[in-house]
């Protein structure tokens, strides 16, 4: 009972339970859920989104967020095409695109932590700028057609039945779990996000941590962009549409909080998996896709209300408010 209680109290419990419920439902409903084709499309959907969601989760732990990752992803896709047309070798393409992501992330981090602009305003501005930049470049690459086979392999190559990008996601999951769990910098995210003032008093470098988190987020968005566009095989102007919202919802369902101080790498993956399974369910069961957004919205509200309510109850019991 003690063990069960401990699992229920884990931040990731809700998202894990929701994922399990959806998998169960889709299995019982029969059909093609467990088919190779469906699992492949699920992977291709989950992996890039989860890679970006790691960054969003870091920011949520710190009490910030980033709305510009969708435009960074799009920019990464279009830049990949641009550099391909310029005839650059693949390692150079990837490196340059990742650098562009780092630049976007640094800009966000600078605006939020050094200039001190509200994260909402700062990242909406950079989202617009990134989107505008991407659209400017788009005209030059729209006629490109298909990427080279070796670039496409980045997106559809497999190892032991899993896409490379899924392996990348799993590797990052392990790395980030260790980072958040066992490194001083990783732990400091929770201290700064939990109580900014107190963290400052204790000698944590708040600014540097926030700058780092935004930079990593930009880098991850660019990485996701390269992998996703390689899987699609040709550049598209619709890459990453609204994915910043998907990531934020996924992270909150996965145990993150806009108030900061909580969240985990596993939660990000579980949250994204839940979002992808929802889409998958609506497709496979031929439900009206319009209802999907309504249900996701309701679940998000339920998760947040439940969390806030249990916190309020705890604080009242202790007479803190």
């Amino acid at each position, binding site marked *: 009972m003690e063990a069960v209680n401990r699992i229920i109290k884990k931040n990731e419990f809700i998202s894990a339970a929701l994922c399990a419920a959806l998998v169960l439902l889709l299995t019982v409903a029969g059909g093609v859920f467990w088919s190779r084709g469906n699992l492949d499309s699920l992977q291709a959907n989950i992996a890039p989104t989860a890679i970006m969601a790691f960054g969003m989760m870091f920011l949520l732990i710190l009490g910030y967020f980033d709305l510009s990752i969708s435009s960074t992803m799009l920019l990464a896709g279009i830049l990949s095409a641009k550099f391909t047309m310029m005839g650059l070798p693949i390692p150079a393409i990837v490196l340059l695109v990742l650098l562009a992501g780092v630049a976007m992330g640094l800009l966000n981090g600078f605006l939020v932590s050094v200039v001190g602009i509200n994260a909402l305003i700062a990242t909406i501005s950079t989202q617009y700028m990134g989107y505008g930049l991407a659209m400017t470049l788009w005209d030059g690459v729209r006629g490109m057609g298909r990427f080279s086979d070796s670039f496409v392999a980045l997106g559809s190559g497999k190892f032991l039945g899993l896409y490379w990008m899924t392996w990348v996601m799993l590797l990052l999951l392990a790395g980030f779990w260790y980072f958040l769990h066992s*490194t*001083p910098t990783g732990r400091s995210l929770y201290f700064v996000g*939990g109580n900014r003032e107190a963290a400052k008093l204790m000698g944590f470098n708040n600014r540097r941590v926030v700058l780092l988190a935004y930079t990593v987020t930009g880098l991850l968005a660019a990485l996701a962009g390269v992998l996703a566009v390689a899987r699609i095989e040709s550049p598209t102007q619709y890459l990453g549409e609204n994915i910043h919202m998907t990531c934020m919802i996924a992270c909150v369902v996965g145990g993150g909080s806009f108030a900061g101080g909580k969240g985990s790498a596993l939660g990000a993956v579980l949250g994204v998996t839940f979002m992808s399974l929802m889409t998958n369910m609506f497709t496979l069961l031929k439900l009206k896709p319009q209802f999907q957004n309504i249900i996701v919205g309701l679940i998000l509200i339920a998760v947040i209300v439940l969390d806030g309510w249990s916190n309020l109850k705890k604080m009242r019991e202790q007479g803190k408010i």
Partner: protein
Amino acid sequence: MKTYTPSSAHEMGIRMVHQELAVFENMTVAENVYPDFKEKKNGFLDRKRLNEKTQEQLNLFGLKTIRPSAPMASVTLGGQQMVEILRCIAAHPKVLILDEPTSGLNDSEAELLMGILRRLKSEGLTILYISHRLNEIMQISDRVTIMRDGQYVTTLDNGPELTEADLINNMVGRDLSDSLYSIKQSGHRQEEALLEVKGLQKKNSLNPADLTLYRGEVVGVFGLEGSGVVKLSRMMYGLERREGGEVLVKDRVVKPLTPRAMTDRKVMYLNNNRKMAGLLLDMPVTDNVSLPILKKVSGKGGMINFKQLQQISTEFIQKFSIALPSLTTRPRNLSGGNQQKVMLSACLAPEPEIVIVNEPTRGIDVGAKAEIHSFLLDLAANGVGIIVFSSEMPELMKLCDRILVMRSNSIVGEVPSSEFSEQTIMRYAAVDENE
């Protein structure tokens, strides 16, 4: 030393326990005690070792109910305060500064802390202990420095001949010959109860409090910081959640107890912070005054009668002699005294029968202060009941017919005007009679 910042103080071995808790509720107790713990085992953070080290600290101070791995959010306020103190001690500082460390502790916890500090002192630690509680100061200190109104007063050796009365005399000691501070000769007869507070309470912030205000009476409430004065003031006006008790206006229970219900019963509230919650700093003075009386000056169809509004504003401006270039002046550009008068105008515009004022003259010049005082006394003479929450004793003694004194979240004494003296009031506020 070039710049003095919290981190440079850290490096010099100074640790401070802040009055406001600086804890991380999202982390475990152990992580709160050792926020910079870095030891690893097999490449992973050695949580077992972290918890053991914390347990040692907890044992050292006999804190048996707190587990190192428990989330900080699950620890009571008193426990959190102890954990914060432990964090400072665990860093082996050279100087330990404690700012009102017992404000969140109950009696047995405070007793425990005194024991801890005595032991640290005997081990050679230098401790700077800031407190309002005289019995703690008397118990623990070698020397006592007294400050008043932001100024150094004196430093006394805590020997056998030092008494609490010595401290109190130095804490008050204001020159009362100033005509600004005469003591009120109250001839008030308590006949018609306007406002009654019965058993108002909330766990850990206010013990059951009772208070009755009569027509034409001015009742003062005095208490040092953290004594529960602010809670009482806010709770009796429905600004803060309560766990029990009720408020009656003219013998009828106010239900639900909300600010709206109170204004409907002609009870007005003057906030203690005019910049944060009191004035619309960037809207014209007339708009500030009209806020509570918009309904009154609106005709049929809900149109605001601006003529009437100007008339009311002008009346107040003359009554208070507020120095205004024009009615459209924004309060942001006014002096503190004039701001305070505008705020009071807004509070009195609805012609209330009961007024609750908080720090009515904080940070304003002597002239404006005297004007506001005489205005409040006139109001009372005309039958308005007034409750004054103030941290300025002379102000209370000038305005009030009686003063209630709070300490440790309770009303601990009532002083009638015939017995007014700073010593009497300070004794209630700072000295625990049970000790």
